[in-house]
């Protein structure tokens, strides 16, 4: 039986790990290599590392830092931030990334995404879907000021052949006040791609609610690991108690 994945998400500003609230006000929370080492020793199911400023600052992700993070990991790693070309994907795969996470390139250069999924396979390309609720509707937050709703965006990325959705609830990012259940259930109806549900986990009861009220099969978290004493194992035990399979 496939196990629910518990995935720490490390967000990086080019120098240090940071944690945002509602995708704003990045606060420094430590060193990426040390964090990766700790998560590896705790047997997490996967790790995601994102340079959340690469596109905004129009720079490439730092391959040295990424390489050092990956060296610590004996589990799969997804890497994202400023990925724009086949060469960028190749650079990350060569140093040991298993999945490459894209977002803005979906708007800027959809042909590249199509090429990448054809060449490297769907399973290699994940998309960060950053959903924000505006006037009762979910829209996709992006750096290009494109107005697009959740369902249209998912339909576009499915056509491009991507293999996974990393679903970020922008309204819940860093707030530690519970997952956006309604967003997760809507998204789950729109697609049969695997979804990593992210945003809002701050207490074990939030994970209980997530697995009680949705068909979530993977959960991504940052704040709970940075700012509380809870570990990935505590979350897995909570998920197990809800009756979902986990790898302990």
């Amino acid at each position, binding site marked *: 039986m496939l196990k629910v994945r518990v995935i720490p998400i490390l967000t990086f500003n080019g120098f240090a790990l940071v944690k945002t609230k509602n995708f704003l006000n990045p606060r420094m929370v430590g060193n990426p290599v040390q964090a990766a080492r700790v998560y590896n020793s705790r047997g997490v199911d996967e790790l995601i590392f994102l340079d959340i400023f690469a596109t905004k600052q129009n720079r490439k992700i730092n391959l040295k830092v990424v390489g050092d993070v990956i060296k610590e990991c004996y589990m799969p790693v997804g890497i994202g931030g400023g990925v724009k070309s086949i060469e960028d994907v190749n650079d990350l795969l060569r140093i040991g990334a*298993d999945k490459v996470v894209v977002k803005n390139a979906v708007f800027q250069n959809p042909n590249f995404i199509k090429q990448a999924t054809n060449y490297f396979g769907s399973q290699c390309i994940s998309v960060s879907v950053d959903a924000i609720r505006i006037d009762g509707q979910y829209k996709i937050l992006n750096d290009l000021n494109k107005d697009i709703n959740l369902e249209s965006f998912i339909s576009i990325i499915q056509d491009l052949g991507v293999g996974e959705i990393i679903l970020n609830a922008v309204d819940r990012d860093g707030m530690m006040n519970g997952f956006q259940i309604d967003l997760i259930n809507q998204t789950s109806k729109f697609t049969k791609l695997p979804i990593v549900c992210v945003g809002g986990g701050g207490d074990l009861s939030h994970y209980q609610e997530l697995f009680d009220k949705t068909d979530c099969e993977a959960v991504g978290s940052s704040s709970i690991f940075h700012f509380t004493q809870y570990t990935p194992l505590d979350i897995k035990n909570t998920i197990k108690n809800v009756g979902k399979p986990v790898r302990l």
Partner: protein
Amino acid sequence: MSVVIIDYGMGNLASIKKALDILRIPNSISSQKNVISQAKAIILPGVGSFSKGMENLKNSELDKLLTEEVVRNKKPFLGICLGMQLISTFGTEPIETEGLGWIEGSVKKIIDSEKRIPHLGWNNIHSTNNFFNDFNEKDFYFIHSYHFELENETEIAAMVNYGGNYVAAIQKDNIFATQFHPEKSQEYGLKFLSKFFKENA
């Protein structure tokens, strides 16, 4: 004499090298004929599409060299993920393409209206073969949208259930292959690699 990890332009070679390094198994990444001929065992890793993988093997004439070393000279072989699928008769990703043809069968897309595809994450395998009994019901990391349907069921070494039952590992004589990624499967992944090299190389 060391183990050679075949470099044919299909992605993630660093993680398999890292796993062998930690196990202190001498290894190198190469596409050179003399390195491959002299190696005591061959690993064919790979992520990506079947047709691109075969195209790259053919363009570098690695297809002939690998067949000679593995099928004729019986050199220990481990195929991982795409490296398992490429030893089939043919694949279908994205179009029908002839494979290396060492194991009879074809590689097809997983069709399941209930399940999310790719089959992505940690799943326990069911051993059907002595070598894999140590790993029966252990979790390994899978990430694939295509699966290998074998003609000869005795060559199946382990299965995995995800809605339907799919081939998780293959063994025929000196040929071993896994759909899962041992190099990404933490403790039991390393144990699997360690056992493979201890017994075969």
